[in-house]
């Protein structure tokens, strides 16, 4: 397995699991046990995600790095509309949902543009 640095997640999960086991000895309520146990599980899941993605990752010659992302900003405003809309009323919920959808669409466009830029740059490198 390629080293991904994700090992730190396992080390941390092991330390946290030690305290979780000690908590189990106290036979406390379900919620405290579930909270600590949930974090340990989350860490292990994150480790698997990072480790597997590091396995699959191939070195790339060209990487797209966005300078601007209007989509991310619009999405943040949309999510805010959704959250505040839960208090203010359905009209703001709808506005928030529409703005969020617009933000996601814009993010999709940015992603596609980045893919095209990578393809162009890769072709140019091959031509050289």
């Amino acid at each position, binding site marked *: 397995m390629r080293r991904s640095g994700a090992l730190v997640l396992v080390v*941390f999960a092991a330390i946290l699991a030690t*305290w979780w086991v000690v908590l189990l000895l106290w036979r406390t*309520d379900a919620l405290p046990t579930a*909270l*600590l146990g949930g974090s340990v599980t989350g860490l292990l899941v994150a480790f698997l995600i990072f480790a597997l993605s590091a396995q699959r990752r191939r070195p790339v010659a060209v990487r797209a790095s966005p300078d601007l992302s209007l989509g991310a900003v619009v999405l*943040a405003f949309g999510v805010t509309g959704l959250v*505040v809309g839960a208090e203010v009323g359905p009209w703001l919920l709808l506005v928030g949902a529409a703005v969020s959808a617009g933000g996601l669409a814009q993010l999709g466009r940015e992603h596609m543009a980045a893919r095209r830029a990578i393809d162009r740059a890769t072709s140019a490198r091959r031509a050289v």
Partner: protein
Amino acid sequence: MRAPAIASPPGPLERLASTDHKRIATRLGGAALVFFLAAGVLALVMRLELAQPGLQVVSTETYNELFTIHGSTMIYLVVTPAALALGLYLVPLHVGAGDIAAPRIALAGMWLIVLGGIVMWSGFLAKQGAAKATWVGFDPLADAPYTPESGMDLWIGGVFLATLGEIAIAACLLATMLRKRAPGMTLLRMPVFCWGVMATVLMVVFAFPALLVALGLLFAERQGAGDVVSSVDYQHLFWFYGHPVVYVMFFPFVGAVAEVISTFSERRFFGYFFMVLSLLLFTALSMSVWAHHMFTTGAVANRYFALTTTAILVPAGVEYFDLIATMWGGRIRLAAPMLFAIGFLLLFLIGGLTGIWIGSPPLDYHANNSYFIVAHFHYTLFGGSVFGLFAGLYFWWPKLFGWLLRDGLGRLHFALMFLGALLTFIPLFALGHEGMTRRIPDYPASEGWGTLNLISTIGSFVIALSILVFLINVAISWLRQVPAGDDPWMGMTLEWATSSPPPRHNFDRPLPPITSFAPLYDLRHGLRPEEAEQGPEARLAGVAGGQEDAV
């Protein structure tokens, strides 16, 4: 004389939507500073109200809003975002990366925090005012029958958004440290600051979601969904977030102080490996102590949580030992960053030692809900986090903006803030011990608490004066810029190997060889990789062993 312009000034769209981690970080840091000033004004009004018994500067209702929004702003919108902003700016530079992982998510996270703050503060415009149920939002106090105002709902929404933004940024930082390190930058060659941020983001990603659940359940209750969460369960969910957040607001500043002390002592950091190990142990413990906030409920395993709380002494002791040992025998320069770092060590120690007191259930029963608790956490959060933040700010300001802050004004800022912190918070220990409960707008004159409260109020204005000195320092230093150069302090880590401020993708020249956690120190002292791994002592041992080429 102005510092040379590295990049053209950003246009309106760039100000809104730049994905450069440095710009996101400076925007987030700027927003945190604005919220800090606003929360500071609320604190001054509260201290005026408490200066003497019988004063009516504000009504009881307004006082409740002030302490709720002051605490909420400082925790959710100032110190946590400032800690993440520091990491957002520096971690990619420290690990030699050209950018942060998933910059769009980080950008959205920054905006969620800012918008969350605006939503929370908009409660003051609501008909019945802002939230009044403390920064914890205690259930059932925060429930609709007891706090029916829409300001409380806006508080829930604001905190939810800010927390969501913080989790997003933390995930980006975690991925950056795991996936975007430069060749040669192994995990155990990351600077101590990065490990501080690593500890922080582990808690943000794996503990903060509990707060989102708690807020969701509280909101559902307020909307008439019935008793969906018991008071004790709400507290479990809240404090599972609420205690780690104390360390989220602490570890990056421990890392910052470590870098400052190392640089201004002109010594490599002492005991690096044990520092890293203690940070991980500290982090795991800080996620295991949450119910010490609930000792007096009688519904938690007090002995377990007292054990884990007291065990924190071990990693904390290792860290203090390492920080002091780094200074030992060093050529110490007492510039403003170093003064703030030493102030951090002294003031956080007061917070830490009083933490042992209230980590013991019998003693906590005495101190619970008193000003003793207020004093304790202000020594950890103000004495620790804010002093650490200013140590980091004075240290990295030249890198961020390309010009230096005035050191004389920085020293004055430190002196006033240190004095102010002692004057403001030491009397609160005595008041709490004598039984003054927190979250009260007034107290009877017969208790004899007037003098101590007056001293505390005077101290809070001394702190405000120190902040004014800082702002004047920024203004003067900006108007008459002294260019910083790439490495004004003889730094040890990679950010000092690039221009100030760094270019768009951080490094426009080859990175120096990364042979340890202090690559620039190694370069300056000509250490070979194996010597760098073991520290300069290896070279001395080599000389003693008769190796001819050791020097």
